[in-house]
């Protein structure tokens, strides 16, 4: 495990920034997560993970399957607790979910007894949320962007897998959350829809100043969307490198191809993952 000893250059930069500015929105320090298994031997899913995320930043998390990306995201969402280390959100220790956070799960996870509209409005009808006209108009616009117009009154089983996933993204955005945690949100989509959704997500992010943490298996997607790409090692999950993406915004996917910065980044990530 020489990789872990190697100083992550990106982390240093981010660390200095955090020092010079106010404290980061998310601070994860030396977090360890162990899963007990039925067989008895525990699985070390996260091994001393350190990660700071600034408010307004777009961070992409890449790593081989089973390396602990979802585990890390679940910790940030307040769905799980770490076995060692500390994690905080907006300066407060993370204990339990916060209503300011929107989560897109790896599976669409729509409620089958509700229509698409009822599903995407769910965040506004529970947890003491207020249902404002403005939010509802915004949701209708999002449904249009997600290509779900005309499907508002359909049930999830009447939708394709990709449509369900898009509906779940709209649901995660419904409360206009400050922090958006997305677990492979576009995994189920075809290449073109995926590009379109990436562009939309970039637009929404640029317009709203949200903080986004997005897990992806696609190097292209990570470079297109991220300010910073966090690369994790195979299990036990460690952060092996953080890479800044120095490409101007708004990024356009057709202009990315052949861009030397893009090519160099893609090659570096590929080598880290291999």
């Amino acid at each position, binding site marked *: 495990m020489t990789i872990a000893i190697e100083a992550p250059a990106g982390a240093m930069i981010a660390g200095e920034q955090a020092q010079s500015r106010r404290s980061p929105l998310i601070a994860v320090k030396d977090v360890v997560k162990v899963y007990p298994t039925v067989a008895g031997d525990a699985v070390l899913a996260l091994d001393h993970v350190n990660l700071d995320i600034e408010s307004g930043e777009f961070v992409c998390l890449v790593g081989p399957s089973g390396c602990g990306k979802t585990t890390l995201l679940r910790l940030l*969402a*307040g*769905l799980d607790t770490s076995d060692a280390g500390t994690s905080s959100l907006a300066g407060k220790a993370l204990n*339990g*979910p*916060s*209503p300011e*956070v929107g*989560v897109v*799960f790896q*599976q669409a*996870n729509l*409620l*089958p*007894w509700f229509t698409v509209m009822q599903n995407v409005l*769910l*965040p506004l009808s*529970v*947890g*003491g*949320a207020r249902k404002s006209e403005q939010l509802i108009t915004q949701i209708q616009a999002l449904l249009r962007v997600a290509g779900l117009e005309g499907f508002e009154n359909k*049930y*999830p*089983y009447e*939708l*394709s*897998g990709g449509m*369900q996933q898009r509906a779940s993204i709209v649901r995660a955005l419904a409360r206009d959350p400050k922090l958006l945690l997305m677990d492979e949100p576009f995994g189920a989509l075809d290449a073109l829809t995926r590009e379109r959704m990436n562009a939309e997500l970039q637009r929404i992010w640029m317009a709203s100043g949200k903080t986004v943490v997005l897990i992806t298996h696609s190097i292209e997607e990570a470079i297109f969307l991220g300010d910073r790409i966090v690369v994790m090692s195979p299990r036990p999950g460690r952060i092996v490198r953080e890479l800044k993406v120095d490409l101007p915004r708004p990024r356009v996917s057709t202009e990315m191809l052949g861009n030397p910065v893009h090519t160099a980044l893609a090659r570096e990530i590929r080598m880290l993952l291999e």
Partner: protein
Amino acid sequence: MTDIRTESNAMDLIASSSAAAKNRRRNERIRNIGIGFAGFLTLVLVWKLSVNYFNVPSYILPAPEQVVVALWSGLAVPVTSPLGWYLPLWSTMANALAGFLIGALLGLFFGSLMAEFRPVETALMPYAFALQSLPKVAIAPLIVIWCGFGDGSKVAMAALLAFFPMMVNSFAGMRAAEVERIELMKVLSASRLETYRLVKLPSAAPYIFAGLDMGIVYALLGTIVAEFLGAQEGMGVAITKAQAVTDVAGVFAALVVLGVTGILLHLIVRWVERSIVHWADRGKH
């Protein structure tokens, strides 16, 4: 031009495919009814032939046509006639339904409590198991002592019998709610009651309907048993009266009336279920 043509063709295709599906369903239904009817006719024929062939006396097993006559004599009277099936059936149904409602609601309530609060589960589970394995009709005499020979004990018996399948099923259904859906509610900071109402209760709906389906038939059974133990009216009384004068055809006719009622109640529950739980068992993509 070509575009429009393809589109209209596509629309035709949609229309014809849904029409074909409807046709297929109808044909299947007609076939099923046909099979059921043929089976029924065979049964009646075998019954008739064996009664004739073995010379069975009618106080042991009446011939089918005697049962039909008995059945008809109870149908072809004014609704308020004391000789008809209507009054006793109404009495039995009213008590069974009242008991069913009470039992089902209590079952849902306690099942929910047990699913929602571990201590309640720990406290109640042993009793639930013990009572579940007890043949509950054996409690009927006790209930008659407590509630008398009137409607009270009939309702109580129906409620008792409807309670258990509902409690067990709603408990199991709520525990079977998918973790991911509960986590979704957690992420949304939903309250416990919101999670119960919007996730756990709908998750349990298929189980709850299975419980209702059992419960409604059990409630009917409970009422009849209570009526056997010396009530004044109801189908159970009609049966004991017929039995007292060895009117076996009358007993059979009463059983037919009860059987048809049970099937109708079951069909009603299934129909309500299909319209409410339409999303169950539809493939996840």
